[in-house]
């Protein structure tokens, strides 16, 4: 059975192996052993921490495949974006232009450098192996972050966002960058990302990026076309997140114009649909008759021992218990009478 769980020190080698795989668009997964170790240690400390106000915590979850060593996926969530600074993005403003005298009415888009996403919780570093693409387990991995937030709301903001990598050409160039950031940074896209370390909270951003809105009609066609477009590698994440309730269109990345999905937790299906249930032992009989089976993501409701799996059971809306098989219970490290949270997946 696939299990999602917090990263552990023993995963470092497996993460290094993953990092060796080319992952275009996943800028936030560290590539060097030193940085991987730092990220794992930070995650372990974050899970262990007692949090009053979300701050610099970063939680990294991994996906284990059944009967396999190593890990097949990663997904992270940062408690508060831009911690120790400001998270910059472009807000996609719409300006209504109306002249009654001239009978003109149209709207103009303008991109405004803004810091509104600062303090939101940020999902990032989502990656699953090719074999798991499109499976319920990929959905579980993405969602598990939000299930953890349901369990431990004090560790997170009420609002969440997810930047997805934007489109680049075959040489790693970005048409959006060429039309905007390059004019101020005077360097290539990849060089700029390298200089800034993928961050969006640095002083040099406020020093270099434009402070006045950029009127979109003035951008070249290819840059306009790239606005809000995802890198092909991000399609899976995009689909999972929009199905979850995240909205695109309001913000884009300041460097490559990639979409930034965002939502209030009340709009997210994991939050609105999470049910707390008591664990009961499932009948081992494979066929339970007329009761139709529904697929659920189930997570142990233990803040300091988070684990999640996918399983099938009867619809839970009008139940007080959830019946979990012995192996599911073992995977979650729960027993009868413990509490779990369940979300249809």
């Amino acid at each position, binding site marked *: 059975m696939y299990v999602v769980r917090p990263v552990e020190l023993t995963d470092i080698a497996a993460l290094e192996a993953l990092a060796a795989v080319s992952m275009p668009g996943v800028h936030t997964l560290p590539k060097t052993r030193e940085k991987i170790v730092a990220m794992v240690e930070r995650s372990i400390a974050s899970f262990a921490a007692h949090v009053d106000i979300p701050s610099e915590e970063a939680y990294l979850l991994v996906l284990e495949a059944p009967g396999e060593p190593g890990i097949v996926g990663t997904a992270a969530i940062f408690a508060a974006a831009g911690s120790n600074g400001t998270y910059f993005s472009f807000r996609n403003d719409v*300006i209504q*232009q*109306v*002249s009654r*005298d*001239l009978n*003109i009415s*149209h709207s*103009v888009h*303008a991109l405004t450098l803004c810091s509104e996403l600062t303090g939101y919780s940020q999902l990032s570093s989502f990656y699953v192996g090719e074999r798991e693409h499109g499976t319920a387990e990929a959905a579980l991995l993405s969602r598990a972050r939000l299930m953890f937030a349901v369990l431990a709301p004090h560790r997170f903001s009420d609002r969440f966002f997810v930047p997805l990598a934007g489109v680049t050409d075959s040489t790693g160039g970005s048409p959006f960058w060429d039309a905007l950031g390059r*004019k*101020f*940074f*005077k*360097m290539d896209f990849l060089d700029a990302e390298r*200089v800034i370390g993928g961050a969006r909270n640095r*002083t*040099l951003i406020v*020093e*270099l*990026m*434009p402070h*006045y*809105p*950029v*009127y979109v*009609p*003035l*951008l070249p066609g290819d840059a306009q076309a790239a606005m809000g477009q995802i890198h092909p590698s991000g399609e899976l994440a995009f689909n999972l997140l929009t199905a979850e309730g995240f909205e695109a269109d309001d913000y884009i990345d300041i460097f490559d114009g990639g979409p930034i999905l965002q939502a209030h937790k009340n709009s997210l299906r994991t939050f609105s649909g999470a049910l707390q249930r008591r664990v009961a032992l499932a009948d081992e009989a494979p066929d339970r008759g007329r009761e139709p089976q529904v697929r659920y993501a189930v997570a142990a409701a233990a803040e300091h021992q988070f684990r999640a799996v996918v399983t099938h059971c009867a619809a839970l809306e009008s139940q007080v218990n959830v019946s979990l098989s012995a192996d599911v219970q073992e995977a979650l490290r729960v027993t009868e009478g413990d509490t779990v949270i369940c979300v249809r997946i």
Partner: protein
Amino acid sequence: MLVVRAITANDLDALYVMATQVGSGMTTLKPDMKMMSDRLAVAVASFAETIAPEKRDYMFVMEDTDNGRIAGVCAIKGAVGLTEPFYNYRIGTLVHSSREIDVFTRMETLYLSNDLTGSTELCSLFLHPDYRTGNNGKLLSKCRFLFIAQFPHLFTEKLIAEMRGYQEESGRSPFYEGLGRHFFKMEFDHVDALTAVGKKSFIAELMPRQPMYVDYLPQDAQDVIGKVHTSTAPARRLLEQEGLYFEGYVDIFDAGPVLQARVSELRAMRESMLAEIGPVMAGEIACAPHADASDPMLISNTNLSDFRMILSQTVPVNGAIALPEDEQKILHCQPGDSVRTLTLNPRKNPHV
């Protein structure tokens, strides 16, 4: 002989005939009898000083005294932008610099502004094609500086002149196509016509308000910022000789430059001199400046309501000028009267 003089009510018909010659590109001189007679009434009241200085519109005509023909026209508006907003783009500089990664970027920026509100404006210059020879163009353009030097108290400290912006031979304005069209969604000529008749609220409604980096514009739009229409280049040079400079303001539609000056710094203010009509003492002739004999003088009377000005070859010496009788007559002057004088062309800079 040509005399430039204050316009009078009798000039209406001649002015109208001339306006039919003007063609497009000059929005303030259209062959529209109603507009024209309204404007003439303001001009007459301006010279008569019966309206407030900021409402005045001093129009001058150049008359050929040989045949009574009106050969040209020009004007000075007391103040612009006091009834309808007067818009320009101002070109500013913003520096984006990060010491941490050693980047220093200097960017030009366009700011929508009404900074020139209240300025005195030179405008409506037109010389009939039959008279486009010799010094006639200079005489017509520069007469206004002598007028200002004689009556500086009538004007604000800031003097401006809007120059027609660059257009391709086809009439296409690269600046408008690169910027304005995205927001106005109409042809350049249409926009131009609307502003000519004072309909400007659409600018407030449609024009982007936020400062804009010039670098966002297409290269051909960037290239013509502050560049004049080919036909306007000579007029620009004349104004620059008199102390007007391009200080970074341009037209919001075609990016044509606005030339500007402090009135107190005009060449006419610094160099023009009063001289009394009469004989020059023999002893002083030796000290006369070494004027180039071919460089004529602008000479005007000092009478606001009947302002008249000519070109003359006579040079004033230590406050006196031996002006020929026929020139005195054309200026409506007589011996003992003061006239104001200024070399038509700037003298070489004496400092080196």
